């Protein structure tokens, strides 16, 4: 009895031991960094963190800043479009590649390769392609459509869409790979049953496959959300936030203030503000889940 009990306790303990690295990382790195950021955001730190606290001054400054407000607006538009289009395109690619097509390996690599390329260079290519006068507009005009215009990248209102295009190009392949892996996990018998039921293929996807892919879709969604909110490299490489400040995004604001502008307090305030909507969205979900587990 006693032996069993101790063995039992030991076994119960093993899973906890296994998640110890995760716990450490979560608590020390993530929770720690978050708390640190919050602390810094209430100080007047510049290049280095200092202990002079200034209350909400940085936040006031933040929301007094036109560029920050514009960045928020931009990232909202960007996030919605980027996630939506990447998921749809990635899903379609996964589905079509899953149809036993020829040259599957080559196609998969083609769709994935943008993900492997440093955006410092590919961003420049996109900038070229989108620049009126040398890029796609030029090429189409050469092909005999002299009135064709495609100048979003220099358009204050549309430049954010060009970032969407280029980042979708970069990420859609990864979405495809993720969903493909999940698609391949669906039992063949389910497919057979659906075929027998005479269900059109698209309906099978909509009504059976997509619900079964829910965990993978959740993964993709979270993954895309994190990359979207942290959007930085692509903007720097393609537009540097321009024209003007039209394509500024929060992460770039944070980075500029973190390094070039040596105002880590304001940068931290920005980072903390980024987390607010995330927590607001995620917390009830986590709470509900843990409640359900206990039930």
């Amino acid at each position, binding site marked *: 009895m006693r032996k069993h009990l101790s063995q039992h306790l030991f076994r119960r303990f093993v899973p906890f031991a*296994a998640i110890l690295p995760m716990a450490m990382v979560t608590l020390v790195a993530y929770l720690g960094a978050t708390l640190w950021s919050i602390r810094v955001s209430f100080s007047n730190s510049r290049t280095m963190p200092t202990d002079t606290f200034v209350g909400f001054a940085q936040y006031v400054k933040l929301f007094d800043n036109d560029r920050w407000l514009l960045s928020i607006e931009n990232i909202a538009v960007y996030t919605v479009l980027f996630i939506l289009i990447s998921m749809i395109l990635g899903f379609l690619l996964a589905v079509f590649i899953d149809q036993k097509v020829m040259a599957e390996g080559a196609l998969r690599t083609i769709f994935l390769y943008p993900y*492997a390329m440093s955006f410092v260079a590919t961003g420049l290519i996109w900038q070229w*392609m989108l620049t009126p006068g040398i890029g796609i507009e030029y090429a189409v005009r050469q092909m005999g459509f002299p009135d064709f215009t495609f100048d979003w990248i220099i358009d204050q209102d549309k430049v954010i869409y060009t970032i969407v295009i280029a980042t979708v*190009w970069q990420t859609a392949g990864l979405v495809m790979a993720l969903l493909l892996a999940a698609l391949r996990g669906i039992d063949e018998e389910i497919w057979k049953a659906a075929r027998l039921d005479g269900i059109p293929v698209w309906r099978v996807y909509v009504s059976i496959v997509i619900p079964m892919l829910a965990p993978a879709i959740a993964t993709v969604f979270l993954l895309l959300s994190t990359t979207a909110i942290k959007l930085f490299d692509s903007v720097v490489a393609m537009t540097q936030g321009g024209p003007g400040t039209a394509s500024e995004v929060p992460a770039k604001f944070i980075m500029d203030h973190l390094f070039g502008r040596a105002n880590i307090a304001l940068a931290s305030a920005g980072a903390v503000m980024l987390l607010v909507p995330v927590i607001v969205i995620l917390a009830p979900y986590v709470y509900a889940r843990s409640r359900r587990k206990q039930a």
Partner: protein
Amino acid sequence: MSTTTAVQHKSKYAKRTKRITRSWTPARLGIYAFLLSAAMFFLLPLYIMLVTSVKSMDEIRMGNIFALPTQFTIEPWITAWSSACTGIDCEGIRGGFMNSLAIAIPSTIIPILLGALNGYALSFWRPRGANVLFGILMVGAFIPVQVMIFPLVRILASVDLYSSLPGIVLVHTVFSMPVMTLLFRNYYSTIPHELFQAARIDGGGFVRIFVQLVLPMSTPIIVVAAIMQLTGVWNDYILGLVFAGRDHLPMTVQLNNVINTTTGTRQYNVNMAATILTSLVPLTLYFVSGRWFVRGIAAGAVKG
């Protein structure tokens, strides 16, 4: 079924042969059309990169990005690989290759293993409180990496890991943990729980079940994780720069030194060649990973 419809149907199916049904229905043509146009969209930038990389700078200054080179040159490739300047040395990007490998291999394997382990513990064992930790972790995934650099530098310096190979591997592990855990956790949630139960009856402990049952069933997701992680680490610049220390600077630092400049002259052809060269390692992984995207990893496992 009445005989008239039967006759109609007969003519409809009789002509069908295997080949027709399998490859050239309009639907299949549509699929190929979609895939091909998508491929074109994806390849266009690569085309420009390739074309640019074999032009001379003079030609690039002319400005027609789509045009084929009038004078083909592979000089930029050679330069990129072995003689572009990356500081006072001009030895191309190859210098960091071994460093990149030394960083990328452990930084791919360890996070994947940890992610799988976390996902496994979260989905099957559900230790108390783990979900809350996971929630915090996922929120943490939204913090821009750069914001965390400063505290991390301090922490690593305090344990004497700053500017070392283990240090940079640890940092990659930390930053990849949310995504890796998420990936595996959600993947495992689709595996029938009964398999896990059977293994417990068989006396499998935490580790055994993980190594012998769960990991072998994870091939597709491991491949995806490897794609993500290897690419991420291979292309990482800022973390390698800050944490790896001078002796372990990854290839991307060289690449960036070639490409990135504010006031120096730019050699677009060399930049493109260098970029493509740098990405060859992940690209190779993408290409060979195909056979691991197997179907039905859990097929035949359970009934119902």
